[in-house]
């Protein structure tokens, strides 16, 4: 494995912090949601049920947001 010195670590942390600031809270929020989704527990049935629940909640959010927007703009 390649070694990394203190200066390298400081540079890496600086770059990561810069990137996180650049992406902004919305990008990070999506990343965290996806990361939570992709970390599975040991029980297959529970994992499938949790994924279905998360997917359906996202669909409801999408449909509600689009319908509210259509009403707002008169479509």
């Amino acid at each position: 494995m390649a070694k990394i010195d203190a200066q390298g670590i400081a540079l890496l942390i600086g770059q990561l912090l810069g990137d996180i600031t650049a992406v902004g809270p919305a990008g990070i929020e999506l990343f965290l949601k996806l990361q939570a989704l992709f970390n599975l527990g040991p029980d297959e049935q529970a994992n499938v049920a949790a994924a279905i629940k998360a997917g359906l909640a996202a669909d409801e959010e999408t449909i509600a947001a689009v319908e509210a927007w259509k009403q707002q703009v008169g479509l």
Partner: protein
Amino acid sequence: MRRRVALVIVLTVFTVACIHKQSGPVSPWERVNVNLAALAQINADVAKGIIAVQQMGSITSQQAAPILNYQELVAKDHMAIENILAAGSAQAVNQSAQIEALLNEIKNQGTALIQSGGLGIKNPKSQQTFTQDLQGIINLAQVVLTDYQLAEGK
């Protein structure tokens, strides 16, 4: 700007490529359902992003409408797929043609929307262009289709 896009793409690819399980291998059904949930989540963020840029005045409501109609179609198709999958794997196998048709509809209509142009503006929710976001949804639909066919043993 390029760095932001690169980071989001790297993060998304990293997470999509890496479904982690605490113990044992990830089953085909877990893969199908988790990727479907990711598709729905990204779709929700694209819809909210389009609404945000329209409300900021970057695009007109006429430009936003076909994209949002597509997001709603994806959400409804995804709900229909999930309702079949929630009934269990045996039911899903019986309705495999319907599941494949819904996934193909998501892919084909998304591709047509990208080809119609005008989606080069940035989604504030993902920091990618809407073309890239929609391509992500299309790619995930293809991943789910392939996983689903593997799960079925085709």
